[in-house]
């Protein structure tokens, strides 16, 4: 007898419309138990609608949602056993921190002793035991979201749903809490669906990232695969910066207005118009005239700490951005350079 392992969360053909607007177009998504998946996309792409459908706050027009193999599509939000952290601060203002964390347990009829001990453990997990008697308005934004996380986890949810919980926080707090969410998620092994429009956030903490556009899942995969092997120009542009150069397919590469570029063009017909997409870190700066390079002039430098972004106008009309490690790019300022595109960071898409 074979034992079937059910996925932690599964969306099958989930469709949702608001009037004439299609928010979700038959979304299929599967999260393995204990997996951390991020849905990434611009505003209005449907990522939050997908999360709200899973939570039970939006009723899909079609499709089903399964949690650990059980169909929860017709279950009210209050019965789904899902912990959710919202974008806006959602702590109950009339309750103390510990009462907020214990709220879900109270709704489940747990005894005061169990509530107190579980809430205490959760507060310890998020490092806020000392603030247990405070009220929401006495906490910083980061602390409020930690409490919201503890409150969501206190009910031992089957799925943890995070709806842009970091977007209202300042940069430093955001990074700290982001890492903490990942640590706690790994410790508890809880299946987590995270929604964000910040690609760096999604890439840094997820097992897999799904990029959404116009209600559809454009691509889903490990962060490194989504970044290095985008399946569309939209994904390439949304996940990181990309240079877009128009050209036509020739044998072994692409002809652009600035010259020939060596890049894999498997499956494309010679003469077909294409868009060449190149990551800034795949733009190599060499000396003028070096083999296989195009010649251009440096028009600007933008220091960004770990890298310097170099703007280059290649002869023939193509402009690109190149990322050069540290401040070593200073030497290129105002001069002519040879430019080469690394095939590993370059992709071709039919125009």
């Amino acid at each position, binding site marked *: 007898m074979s034992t079937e392992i059910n996925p932690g969360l599964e969306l099958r053909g989930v469709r949702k419309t608001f009037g004439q607007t299609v928010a979700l177009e038959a979304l299929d998504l599967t999260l393995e138990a204990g997996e951390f998946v991020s849905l990434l996309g611009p505003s209005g792409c449907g990522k939050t609608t997908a999360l709200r459908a899973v*939570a*039970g*706050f939006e009723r899909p027009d079609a499709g089903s949602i399964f949690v650990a193999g059980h169909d929860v599509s017709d279950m*009210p*939000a*209050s*019965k*789904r*056993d*899902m*912990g*959710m952290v*919202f974008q*806006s*601060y*959602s702590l*109950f*203002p*009339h*309750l*103390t921190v*510990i*009462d907020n964390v*214990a*709220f*879900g347990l*109270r*709704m*489940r009829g747990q005894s*005061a002793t169990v*509530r*107190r001990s579980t809430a205490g453990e959760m507060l310890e997990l998020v490092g806020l035991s000392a603030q247990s008697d405070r*009220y929401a*308005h*006495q906490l910083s934004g980061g602390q409020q979201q930690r409490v*919201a996380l503890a*409150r*969501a986890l206190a*009910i031992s949810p089957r799925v943890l749903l995070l709806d842009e919980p970091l977007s209202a926080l300042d940069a430093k707090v955001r990074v700290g809490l982001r890492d903490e969410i990942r640590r706690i998620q790994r410790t508890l092994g809880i299946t987590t669906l995270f929604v964000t429009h910040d690609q760096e956030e999604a890439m840094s903490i997820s097992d897999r990232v799904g990029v959404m556009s116009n209600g559809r899942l454009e691509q889903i995969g490990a962060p490194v695969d989504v970044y290095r092997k985008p399946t569309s120009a939209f994904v390439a542009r949304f996940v990181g910066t990309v240079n877009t150069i128009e050209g036509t397919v020739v044998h072994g590469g692409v002809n652009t207005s600035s010259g020939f570029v060596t890049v894999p063009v498997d499956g494309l017909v010679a003469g077909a118009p294409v868009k060449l997409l190149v990551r800034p870190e795949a733009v190599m700066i060499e000396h003028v005239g070096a083999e296989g390079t195009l010649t251009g002039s440096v028009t600007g430098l933008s220091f960004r700490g770990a890298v310097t972004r170099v703007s280059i106008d290649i002869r023939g009309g193509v402009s690109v951005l190149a990322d050069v490690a540290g401040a070593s790019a200073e030497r290129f300022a105002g001069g002519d350079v040879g430019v080469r595109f690394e095939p590993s960071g370059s992709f071709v898409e039919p125009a």
Partner: protein
Amino acid sequence: MTTRRRPQIGLALIVVACAVFFIVPFIATIRFGFAKPLGGGYTFKAITRMVHADGFGTALWLSARLAFGTTFFSLLLMVPTLAWLHLKMPKLLPAFEVVSVLPYAIPAVALVSGAATAFRKPWPFILIESIGMIPLYAIVALPFTYRSIDNGLRAIDVKTLSEAARGLGASWPKTLFAVIVPNISTSLLGAAFLNIAIAFGEYTIASLLLHQTFSAFVVRQANENPRGATAMGLLSILFTCLTLGLVSSLSRRRKGGRVTFSAFGR
């Protein structure tokens, strides 16, 4: 400098004029209600006579019951309705707001006539029993009840809070009573107070339906004991001011987070 002072003097004059307009009648009321008729100091004789008059206790008790009933009825009807509107149909709120102010425009006489026409046959008790005045009082209080609860709901993120509660396992009634109501408690207190004030002060409906409420009693007494009725009116105003002060003070305490609820305190 002169031009700057002119508006200030003008403003001061307006403030003084307003103060005189409000304070002088107060002083006159105090003098009429509490001064000895022949001069020589003040007395509580008129109001004591009022309190000992036949029917005072019955009228006060009836108004107290009506006040409690009206408050309960108004809040029970309006809190879930408005919470639901805010959550599910916020686009309908402006239309409901217009409906809520209709009692301002409809005189109490018209309300009673309408109720008499509509309910005489199906529910005559509305016109006969004193308890039947509760829905009518709730309609008169509707503009105040609506505004007070609506302000409370607008002051909190009712959608996120209720979704957070629902996600944590709270049913709709529990979400309403464990999350929404405690967070608009000051508004509810204000609404309750306004309902009480209306139930105690309303005269036309009680008079038309021949019920001896507190206000009807005071009006009747005004013929026999005008000083007592005036003194009672003044005390009612003072009671209203004190209660308003209490609500305002609670509101400030609430904002300071000192009104507390506990999940473990039971």
